[in-house]
């Protein structure tokens, strides 16, 4: 059983309703991933992004970032949460996903499409995020990732 997720929605004044910030705190359990992705994606439905990016890229990339944060960041520790902030503007959507773990070095993750690695079961998450978002950056600690989806 999962508890309902309650996002905090803030509309920034003076933007004609275009600039919106959604914050969501997600418990460190994998069964929350689908619901959390759904909640955020529904709030992004009016963002100036293509139907495909809204339907697919944003959902899959967020699911990956959340799973990484829950599994490798917070190590499924029930006392820790993953925080998501979605910032909507006329430029597109910025998704910030941060965990309470020690962080990691994203440059240490090898390319999963190199021939010897194609048949491996794991190790594709970060690669998929980089393919689906327009820009991916990490904070200095390596426990927070920012995914940018631009309106073109």
């Amino acid at each position, binding site marked *: 059983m999962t508890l309902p997720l309650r996002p905090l929605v803030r509309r920034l004044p003076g933007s004609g309703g275009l600039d919106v910030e959604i914050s969501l705190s997600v418990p460190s359990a994998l069964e929350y*991933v*689908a619901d959390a992705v759904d909640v955020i994606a529904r709030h992004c439905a009016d963002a100036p992004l293509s139907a495909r990016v809204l339907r*697919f890229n944003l959902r*899959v990339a967020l*699911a990956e970032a959340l799973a990484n944060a829950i599994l490798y960041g917070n190590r499924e520790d029930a006392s820790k949460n993953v925080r998501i902030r979605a910032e909507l503007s006329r430029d597109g959507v910025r998704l910030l996903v941060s965990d309470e773990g020690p962080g990691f070095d994203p440059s240490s993750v090898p390319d999963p*499409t190199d021939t010897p690695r194609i*048949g491996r*079961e794991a190790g594709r*998450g970060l690669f*998929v995020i980089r393919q689906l978002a327009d820009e991916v950056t990490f904070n200095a600690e390596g426990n927070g990732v920012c995914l940018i989806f631009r309106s073109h």
Partner: protein
Amino acid sequence: MSFSLRKDSHGVVVVGVDGQLIVGNRQELKQKVLDALEGGAKKFVIDFSKTGYIDSSGLGVLVSLSKKIREEGGDLRLAGLNEDLQTLFELTKLDTLFAITKTPEEALAAF
């Protein structure tokens, strides 16, 4: 999110993925397919016609199931991928690892 299993008249198991195949439910799919494999089934088609999205954990489970089924002398085919899902398989080069057909019927006919 749910998985349905049915056997066609030639004993091929067709697994329908309704909704998402992601980190939160991949074990359920894995267990259902492994149970069928244990029960003697050898040929499998996974039908993604009703699937919203798959994440890398979902892809990982497909890789692992495909290996396991081949080890048992069987075969796993994928069918019904929409344009989004097809792109995901191409990006990760997993389209080179799996036999993919447009419809489950084509996959069944190819066995």
